[in-house]
C-alpha cells in the first residue's frame, strides 16, 4: 500500500514533505547528523548568511520564558562564502537546502543572493526581513512597506532562484506586508519570525539578555503565528511557509489548515533534535489514518462557521 502523497510545491521548490527546519535553529544541517537523517525532512533553511562572517552578540544570548524563549544571537554566521565552500558540500545531495539571507542594506542582500545562485545545491533563498535597516535607525525592513518593497525588488533582480521573504510579526498589518512582497515578485512567504520582547532580572534590575531586546519563539507565539498565516494567506495567492511554536504534527497541521503550504520547525529542535523528522512522520500517519491521499489538499481548508 502506498502512503499518502506529502509532496508540496513551495513557490517553485519541490518538497517531498511540507516540513522544513527554521533558520537559526538547525545550524547548517551538518550538526544534526548524529540524530536525524535529513532526508526525512522536506528541507532545511540555513542560519541567516551575510556577506562577511559575523561573530554575534555578547552573552547572555538566550533565556527561557513561559512557553517560549528569548534570543539575541546577533546573527552570528560563517558568511556566505564559507557556507558555499564548507557547509553546503557536507550535506547529502538529496537534502533540499534553502539559504537564509541577511544584510543591513539592500545591496548586501542582493550580493549574498547572487553568490548563492552560483550553486546548484541552493534550492531557494529566504530573505530575513527582520533586520534593522541601518539608514532608518533601527526600524526593520519588514516593518515598513516601502523599505520592504525596495528590499524585495532588489533581491528579485539579483536571483532567479525561488525567492521566499520571511516576514516580521512586529507589524500592524501582516496582510499589507504580504501584499507588498507578492507585488514585488516574491515566490513565497515565510512567517513568522520572532516577536520582539524583553525580560528582566529583578535582582540585578538588568535585562536578562545583554542585547536588552530579544526575539520570542516557541509555543507561546503559535496562536499569533496561526493568525498571521491565515490573514496573509487570504491577502495573497503565493504560497506561505508557516512558522511559530510548532512542536508536533498536530501543530503543523493547524498551519496547513490555516493556509500554509509548508511549515518550518524552530525551537522544537532544541528540545529534541529529531523533532522535525517526527513531525514529518506524524503528518504522514495522520493523513493515512484520515484517508487523505494528498496533503496539499489540506492547505487552506479552514472552515469558518457562518
Amino acid at each position, binding site marked *: 500500500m502506498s502512503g499518502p502523497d506529502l509532496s508540496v510545491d513551495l513557490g517553485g521548490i519541490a518538497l517531498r514533505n511540507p516540513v522544513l527546519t527554521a533558520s*537559526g*535553529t*538547525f*545550524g547548517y544541517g551538518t*550538526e*544534526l547528523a*548524529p*540524530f536525524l537523517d535529513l532526508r526525512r525532512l522536506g528541507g532545511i533553511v540555513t*542560519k541567516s548568511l551575510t556577506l562577511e562572517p559575523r*561573530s*554575534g552578540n*555578547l*552573552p*547572555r*544570548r*538566550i*533565556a*527561557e520564558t*513561559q*512557553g*517560549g*524563549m528569548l*534570543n539575541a*544571537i546577533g546573527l*552570528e554566521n560563517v558568511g556566505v562564502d564559507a557556507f558555499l565552500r564548507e557547509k553546503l558540500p557536507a550535506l547529502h545531495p538529496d537534502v533540499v537546502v534553502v539559504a537564509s539571507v541577511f544584510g543591513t542594506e539592500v545591496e548586501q542582500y542582493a550580493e549574498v543572493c547572487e553568490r548563492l545562485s552560483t550553486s546548484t545545491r541552493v534550492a531557494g533563498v529566504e530573505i530575513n526581513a527582520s533586520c534593522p535597516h541601518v539608514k532608518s535607525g533601527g526600524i526593520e525592513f519588514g516593518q515598513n512597506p516601502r523599505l520592504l518593497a525596495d528590499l524585495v525588488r532588489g533581491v528579485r533582480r539579483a536571483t532567479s532562484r525561488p525567492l521566499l521573504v520571511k516576514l516580521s510579526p512586529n507589524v500592524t498589518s501582516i496582510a499589507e506586508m504580504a501584499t507588498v512582497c507578492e507585488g514585488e515578485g516574491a515566490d513565497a512567504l515565510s512567517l513568522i519570525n520572532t516577536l520582539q520582547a524583553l525580560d528582566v532580572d529583578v535582582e540585578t534590575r538588568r535585562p536578562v539578555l*545583554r542585547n536588552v531586546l530579544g526575539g520570542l519563539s*516557541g*509555543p507561546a507565539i503559535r496562536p499569533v503565528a496561526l493568525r498571521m498565516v491565515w490573514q496573509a494567506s487570504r491577502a495573497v495567492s503565493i504560497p506561505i511557509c508557516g512558522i511559530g511554536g510548532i*512542536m*508536533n504534527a498536530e501543530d503543523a497541521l493547524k498551519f496547513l489548515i490555516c493556509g500554509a503550504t509548508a511549515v518550518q520547525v524552530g*525551537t522544537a*529542535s*532544541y*528540545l*529534541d*533534535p*529529531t523533532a522535525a523528522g517526527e513531525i514529518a512522520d506524524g503528518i504522514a500517519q495522520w493523513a493515512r489514518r484520515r484517508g487523505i491521499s494528498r496533503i496539499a489538499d489540506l492547505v487552506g481548508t479552514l472552515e469558518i462557521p457562518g
Partner: protein
Amino acid sequence: MTHPPLRVDARVREGRAEGGANHRLRLFVPGFEAFAPGQFAMLSPGAVGAAERFDPLLPRPMAIYRAHGADGGREVEVLYKVHGRGTALLAQARAGDRVRFVGPLGRPFPEAPRGALALLVGGGTGVASLYELAARTRAASGARVRVLLGARSGADLMGLADFESLGVEVVVVTEDGSLGEKGLVTEPLERMLGAESDAIVYACGPTPMMRRAAALAAAGGRRCWVSLENPMACGYGVCLGCAAPRAGGGFVLVCRDGPVLDADIVDWERLAG
C-alpha cells in the same frame, strides 16, 4: 575519545534529595554505552509523560556524573542543585517518570600526562563534572590526582562521600569553615601549584573560581582546563546561545567546542558572571 550522542527517553530510577539544594537523579538510559569525563547531557524535566509538557520549555545541561553497567543501556547518575524553576521541577521527578535525554555531548577533559599531578578543582555544581575524571585518572597508571572541593558550607558540598570512596586525596574548603579548611578553594590550589612543579589543573565551578584558577595556573606556567557552565538551549551546536568570548575576539560554543576548554582561549574579561 567521544561517543555518538543519543536522543532517548530515559526512565527515572530514583530521585533523591541529598541535603542543602543537592539532588541525585538515577536514570536508566536505553542504548547508552559510554561517555568521557566532562561530557554532559541535555535533560528535559517533564517533557515526556502521559501528555507532553512544555513548562519548562528548554532542556537543562547536566554533567554526566557516572554510569553503571546494565542490560541494553546504562544507569546514568546526575548530581545537581535546585537553582531555578527547571531544577525545582526536576526535583519532583520520581521513579518511573520519563525524562528526555540527549547525550553524551561536548568535548571531554583531556587525560593528564603520565607522571603529572592532576589537580581537580570543583566549586558549586561544578563538582559534578569532575567525579568521573577523578575516577579514571586514579585508575590510570602513572597519574596522580588530588581533588579540591569548595562550597559555601559543608551542607552545600556535593558528592563528597563518592570522591572519598575513590581513594583519592580530597581537600575540602568551605567559605564558612563548617567543613574542612575555611576560605576559597583556590587558596589551597595556589599553595599546591607553588609546591608541585608537574601539576595540571582541571577546574569547574563558578566563573570567578575558574577565572582565578586560570590566572594561578597561567602565572605558574601550568596547563589549565576549565569546564564552562553557560546557559544552553540545544546543547549540540545549532542555537548559538552558549557562546563564550574567545581570547583575541569572537566566540567559542561551549556545547560544541567545550564545555571543556583550554583556559587560555577564554576571554575571562568578557565572560559574564
